[in-house]
């Protein structure tokens, strides 16, 4: 009996598409995650092979969370199918065995629900096979598969998790005969999982947490916490330790639930409580003869029919359980998303309308698409499935009316959902006390980015269902079109949005520049797709299978015969209009504004390198003086530039030709006296001018270059986001042609280069001890210029304010335009930004320097704090490093098309999306906004007063120094050493995560190759630790003397070795090893507190005994890690409180054994103890450094 139900369960469900769809989705996700870096599922990958047992197990455990949905589907089906089909009475009156039925169904569903998860394996295997072949990933990033990985994952995670979820879902479904309730049961499992997470966050409880985790996810991550990359690459999860116990525990619990449910289960119908009928017998007028109403078939009939169809369709979606579940799920996701807020390094952004919109998109889009796909099929097939199709089909309505009503009800349900989510978002905004609710932004965003998508998808999917004439094949086709079509386009190297259904330029709302430059294009693309959706509907209407089913061919014949002329004319007219729009869009996006596909761009890079590499290193003059004339036309989004510059030959040889790289879209015009254009390649945008008389060493010429950026029509993509109606922001590199060969164009990826027979590219020139030529250029201006004077006359429209570097000499109006004349007060690197917007300006004076913040009037809330931060930085840096040479210090807000802050001489453009909109109301002291400002301010010294040569280690002197300086301003604001730990932890994290994802090789700090995780993360941590070991003054002194030597000096530019030279004298001999290990090697620590106990001493004091374990690890350039003997000074400390806020005792002790014991005598009982309590060393796992102190037995 068991066998019968078991196998019939399998057979029944395997015939349904659900198993395959789920399996397919699982495979798709892991395929994406394996084959590309853009899809990420859980945890880092990096150094670890992309198909390592660890990664596969992570995929399995994470995706099993989604697997709950699968379990819910299958177990519900097994439990409720007979009831839903009213078959229960027939079935249960047959002599079947209760256990056979109950367990047969259960285990059938159990096996079934594990099948889709196998898609995870399929995806990984396919991904590992395809990615190297297709050249998406290096073959080296994949290793061998281990059978054990698959088997153990199945029996450790897949089967047990499905069993546990299954027992609850199945039992609840049977007990309550309700799908929804059993879903809620599944939700309960997630709650337990979340609770286990809160246990895990405290290292003392992590064992309990790991046992409690319903799904074993956290158990596994605890078990693998100390795994090295090699272990992660080779070891499969095993039936041992906590993981085994966790699995056994939950299987026992699941079995208990199942047993209880079995005892309760009975074939007998429960006595339903019959609800007393509330229907009153109503009085009504008897009508004895049939009322005769003349039917009318005018246009208002169509309208009435449309409404009635709409109503019945809409109701059927709204009342469907599937809809309700999808709705609840997306709502839960949204609420969780909102609950977490919009955090940035521990701070919350205000709940701006665009943030809410982003949250809604992120958490609900997928569900809305699922709803559209699912219900397009439901609505099309509903009449047939309910067997009412013949009656409806034989009634006098036109098919297009009923199909339009279906489409509209799909669009409406999606729209209503979206509006409901918006409503939730508004409630959230209000609940957070945020009242700048931009209903217009919600509304416009809806009509620009949601409604057209819903509309075109509804039309397309209805057409698919009608044409294909099979619900499930139709679903498959719909899913294909949604998810795969874009992959097909990608692989065919087609990036035109005209071929990707519903696509168009993205519009992103910014408080400064509204919906931005993509609006016009988006409107045209929306029109294009809207018409396309209508045509799809019309086609569907014509080919709608009315009456008995017939083949597509027959239906086309019927359409030709029956469809009225007017309708055909209508369709033709529609097609003509659509073609017109398509032509216009094509003209704008392909003719007026050409773009390159990614393959073309790649080929261009290759050809450029092959053709022009020979010019790399030709002698070129440098810009030694420059004057910019810039006219910005915000309304037209045009920019006119004229630059007068002096070029000087600073080489030792005569120069007779000048090479330029230019950008066609900026239409450059060169005016180089006594020269001749001898080479011009428009495709590669490369020009060579030959000077009639060679420029002798030391000689100069004055030249003029004009460029014009003219916005025409709209583009396939968003368009140029740096020239916008409000908030234009560009730098001097982008507006003027650049001198010489541009190595930045070259491809960098090793595999791609190999494909084109190009040798691997060195990321940077190697660090040289006595460098000559390589030190003549820095990485900011790439050798085009050194420290020079610059002057700008910039104009913009009368409502805007334009900012260029330097002091404002003069300001005037001419016509309806504002003019500004700026001049830098001190020679600087030729690295400038120009900005124009409707700005408010906040100013403050500090020792003769004007601190200015230029901001949008909606963003005034944090301005004072920003001014404070600038002032604090100026104070600390000028005291410790040397004077500030500009007369002003500007923080300038720019639109959120990019999220960064950047330092130009005297100016710091700062994106609106953080800082300006971050909620600092509850932040009494230092915070990351201060930190960012302090960092950019520090660049005024580190990058703009001294900048490293363009070679390994170059960015240490700008980025590491700035990040360190920023930390020091923080440190000087607070007396509390524990506050700093909160800041440094981000830098620690940045480094440790970054090195896990390094693709070439990790360099020691002094040879950093512009690797952000090293120069920001490791650099700041090391310098911070160094000042803790040798003193703040010593480190600052080294930096200062280094700065003094190279400040604003002509090349050669300094290297990291120059700094090491200045560092050496300030480091005592006992600490010299730190410099080697931290700067010149890759050194990590693995410190651990094993046990902390206290005993009360007779004198009333307490003796705390700490058992400590320390390891020092050195990584070689290939990333291989070796443990080395420890002979280092490390802090130990005691905390008075459990929150680790009050460090009551601290001592630096020498560790020369791997295991050491220390005894400390204190006056009161400490709550916690730790090694390296302030987290200044780079520790692979810091969590285990601190433990609760327990009383000794």
């Amino acid at each position, binding site marked *: 009996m068991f066998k019968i139900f078991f196998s019939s369960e399998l057979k029944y469900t395997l015939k349904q598409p659900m198993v395959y769809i789920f399996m397919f989705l699982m495979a798709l996700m892991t395929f994406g995650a394996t084959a590309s870096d853009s899809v990420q599922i859980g945890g880092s990958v990096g150094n670890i092979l992309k198909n390592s047992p660890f990664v596969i197990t992570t995929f399995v455990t994470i995706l099993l969370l989604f697997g709950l949905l699968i379990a819910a589907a299958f177990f519900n089906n097994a439990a409720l199918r007979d009831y839903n089909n009213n078959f229960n009475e027939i079935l249960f009156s047959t002599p079947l065995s209760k256990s056979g039925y109950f367990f047969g169904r259960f285990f059938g569903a159990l096996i079934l629900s594990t099948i889709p998860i196998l898609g995870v394996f399929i995806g990984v295997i396919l991904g590992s096979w395809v990615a190297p072949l297709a050249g998406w990933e290096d073959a080296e990033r994949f290793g061998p598969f281990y059978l054990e990985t698959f088997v153990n994952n199945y029996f450790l995670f897949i089967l047990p998790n499905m069993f546990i979820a299954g027992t609850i879902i199945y039992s609840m479904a049977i007990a309550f005969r309700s799908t929804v309730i059993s879903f809620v049961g599944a939700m309960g499992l997630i709650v337990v999982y979340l609770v286990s997470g809160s246990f895990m966050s405290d290292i003392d409880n992590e064992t309990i947490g790991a046992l409690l985790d319903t799904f074993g996810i956290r158990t596994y991550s605890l078990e693998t916490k100390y795994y090295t990359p090699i272990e992660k690459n080779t070891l499969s999860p095993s039936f041992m330790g906590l993981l085994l116990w966790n699995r056994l525990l939950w299987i026992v619990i699941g079995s208990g639930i199942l047993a209880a449910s079995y005892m309760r289960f009975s074939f007998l119908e429960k006595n339903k409580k019959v609800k007393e009928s509330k*229907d009153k017998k109503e009085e009504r007028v008897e009508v004895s003869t*049939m009322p005769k*109403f*003349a039917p009318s*078939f005018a246009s*208002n009939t169509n309208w009435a029919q449309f409404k009635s169809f709409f109503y019945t369709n809409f109701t059927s979606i709204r009342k469907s359980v599937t809809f309700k579940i999808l709705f609840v799920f997306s709502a839960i996701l949204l609420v969780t998303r909102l609950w977490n807020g919009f955090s940035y390094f521990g701070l919350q952004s205000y709940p701006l309308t665009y943030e809410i919109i982003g949250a809604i998109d992120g958490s609900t889009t997928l569900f809305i698409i699922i709803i559209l796909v699912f219900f397009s099929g439901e609505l099309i097939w509903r009449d047939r499935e309910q*067997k*009412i199709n013949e009656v409806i089909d034989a009634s006098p309505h*036109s098919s297009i009316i009923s199909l339009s009503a279906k489409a509209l009800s799909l669009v409406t349900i999606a729209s209503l959902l979206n509006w409901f989510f918006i409503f939730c978002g508004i409630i959230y905004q209000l609940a957070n006390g945020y009242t700048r609710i931009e209903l217009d932004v919600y509304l416009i965003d809806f009509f620009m980015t949601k409604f057209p998508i819903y509309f075109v998808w509804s039309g397309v999917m209805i057409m698919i269902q009608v044409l294909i004439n099979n619900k499930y094949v139709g679903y498959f086709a719909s899913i294909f079109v949604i998810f795969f079509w874009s992959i097909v386009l990608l692989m065919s190297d087609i990036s035109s949005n005209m071929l990707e259904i519903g696509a168009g330029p993205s519009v992103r709302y910014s408080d400064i520049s509204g919906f931005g430059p993509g609006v016009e294009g988006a409107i045209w693309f929306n029109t294009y797709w809207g018409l396309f959706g209508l045509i799809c509907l019309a086609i569907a209407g014509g080919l709608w299978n009315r009456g008995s089913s017939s083949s597509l061919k027959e239906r086309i014949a019927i359409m030709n015969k029956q469809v009225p002329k007017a309708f055909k004319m209508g369709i033709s007219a529609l097609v003509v209009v659509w073609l017109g729009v398509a032509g216009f869009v094509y003209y704008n996006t392909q003719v007026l504004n050409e773009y390159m596909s990614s393959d073309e761009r790649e080929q261009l890079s290759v050809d450029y390198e092959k053709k022009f590499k020979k010019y790399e290193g030709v002698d070129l003059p440098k810009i030694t003086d420059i004057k910019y004339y810039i006219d910005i036309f915000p309304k037209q989004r045009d920019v006119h530039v004229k630059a007068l510059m002096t070029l000087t030959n600073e080489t030792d040889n005569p120069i007779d030709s000048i090479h330029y790289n230019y950008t066609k879209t900026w239409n450059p015009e060169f005016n180089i006296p006594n020269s001749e254009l001898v080479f011009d390649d428009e495709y590669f945008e490369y020009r060579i001018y030959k000077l009639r008389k060679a420029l002798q060493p030391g000689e100069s010429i004055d030249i003029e270059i004009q460029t014009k950026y003219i916005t025409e029509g709209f583009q396939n993509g968003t368009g140029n986001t740096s020239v916008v109606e409000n908030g234009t922001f560009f730098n001097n590199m982008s507006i003027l042609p650049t001198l010489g060969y541009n190595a930045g164009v070259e491809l960098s990826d090793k595999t791609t280069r190999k494909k084109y027979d190009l040798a691997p590219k060195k990321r940077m020139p190697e660090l040289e001890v006595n460098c000559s030529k390589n030190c003549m250029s820095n990485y900011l201006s790439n050798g085009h210029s050194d420290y020079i004077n610059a002057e700008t006359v910039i104009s913009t429209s009368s409502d805007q304010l334009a900012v260029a570097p330097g002091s404002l000499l003069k300001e005037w109006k001419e016509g309806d335009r504002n003019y500004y004349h700026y001049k830098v007060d001190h020679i600087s690197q030729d690295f400038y930004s120009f900005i124009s917007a409707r700005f408010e300006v906040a100013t403050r004076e500090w020792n003769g320097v004007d601190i200015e913040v230029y901001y949008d009037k909606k963003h005034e809330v944090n301005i004072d704090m920003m001014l404070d931060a600038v002032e604090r930085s100026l104070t600390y840096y000028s005291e410790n490093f040397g004077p500030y040479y500009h007369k002003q210090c500007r923080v300038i807000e720019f639109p959120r098309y990019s999220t960064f802050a950047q330092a130009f001489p005297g100016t710091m453009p700062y994106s609106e999306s953080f800082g300006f909109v971050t909620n600092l109301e509850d932040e009494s002291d230092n915070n990351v906004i201060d930190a960012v400002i302090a960092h950019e301010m520090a660049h005024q010294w580190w990058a703009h007063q001294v900048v490293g040569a363009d070679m390994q280690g170059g960015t240490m002197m700008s980025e590491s120094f700035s990040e360190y300086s920023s930390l020091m301003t923080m440190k000087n604001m607070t007396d509390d050493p524990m506050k700093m730990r909160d800041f440094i932890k981000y830098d620690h994290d940045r480094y440790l995560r970054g090195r896990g994802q390094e693709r070439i090789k990790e360099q020691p700090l002094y040879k950093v190759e512009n690797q952000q995780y090293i120069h920001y993360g490791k650099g700041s941590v090391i310098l911070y630790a160094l000042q803790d070991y040798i003193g703040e003054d010593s480190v600052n002194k080294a930096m200062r003397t280094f700065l003094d030597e190279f400040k604003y000096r002509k090349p050669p530019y300094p290297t990291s070795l120059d700094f090491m030279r200045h560092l050496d004298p300030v480091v005592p001999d006992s600490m010299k090893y730190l410099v080697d290990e931290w700067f010149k090697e890759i050194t990590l620590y693995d410190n651990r507190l094993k046990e902390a106990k206290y005993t009360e001493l007779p004198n009333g004091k307490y003796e705390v005994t700490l058992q400590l374990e320390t390891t020092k690890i050195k990584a070689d350039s290939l990333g291989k890690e070796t443990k080395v003997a420890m002979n280092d000074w490390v802090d130990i400390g005691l905390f008075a409180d459990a929150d680790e806020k009050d460090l009551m005792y601290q001592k630096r002790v020498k560790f020369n054994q791997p295991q050491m014991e220390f005894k400390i005598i204190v006056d009161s009982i400490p709550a916690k103890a730790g090694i390296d309590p302030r987290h200044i060393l780079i520790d692979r796992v810091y969590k285990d450094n601190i433990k609760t102190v327990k009383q000794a037995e």
Partner: protein
Amino acid sequence: MSILKIENLSKTYPNGVKALDNVSIEITNGMFGLLGPNGAGKSSLMRTLATLQEADSGSAFLDDINIFQEPEELRKVLGYLPQEFGVYPRITAEQLLDHMCVLKGITKKSERKEMVTYLLDKVNLYDKRNKSVKGFSGGMKQRVGIAQALIGNPKLIIVDEPTAGLDPGERNRFYNLLADVGQEVIVILSTHIVDDVRELCTNMAIMNLGNLVFQGAPQTAIDELKGKVYQKIISRGELEEYGKNFPIISNKMVGGQPLIHVFSESNPGSGFEQVAPNLEDVFFSKINTQNVIV
């Protein structure tokens, strides 16, 4: 007075089954019964007339509406109840009928309300009007189906086995309703309950294997058989032998023993007695031409 004129209608399904074989017929106002065994082509004919299926050849006109060329026009004057009638879940009877009223061109809300009330009352579902149709029994659903077929002043009502699943009381109620409207319009009623046709229809046709094997008034058919039908109660064992020797029209069990009717121009003797023919005899004699025991 409407006339439905069907000429040379043929339809062969892709699997080779000849559903309609050159059917020609003329039907005028009143109830028209369509009798025939399962698979005779009744439903094919009715669906073709209801514009739900294309014919291979032939024509059909309702007055001057060419059904195949102007299906839209026919649908405006058509009431149709198919053999299988389902309903939307999660919608009440009242909502469903209201929807059908709209589809049939009754655009005024008040008129629809009156119509729906009348129909629900006539099919005895007024009390249940706010209940979801999904919970209805088969008979109740069928009654909803009947109600919707009457909406909108149809000139042609096609009902395919409408009384299946109805209890006798409901059946009577339904026929009364149909007879009410059937005076002025064409009602085509397919059934295999022969008595229904006799009681209700002024004209009828019998179909078998896609062919019309009889058309005319029921009484005419019965009259044709007058004096030619004989019956006898035999034992079960004798059935096969009688089958060989006599043109048996029908056999049914009476008191546990087969009662056979045979067709014979003269008294076949051997204990047969002459009976007054009924429509059932007509039916069986028309379709049972191969003298197979049915």
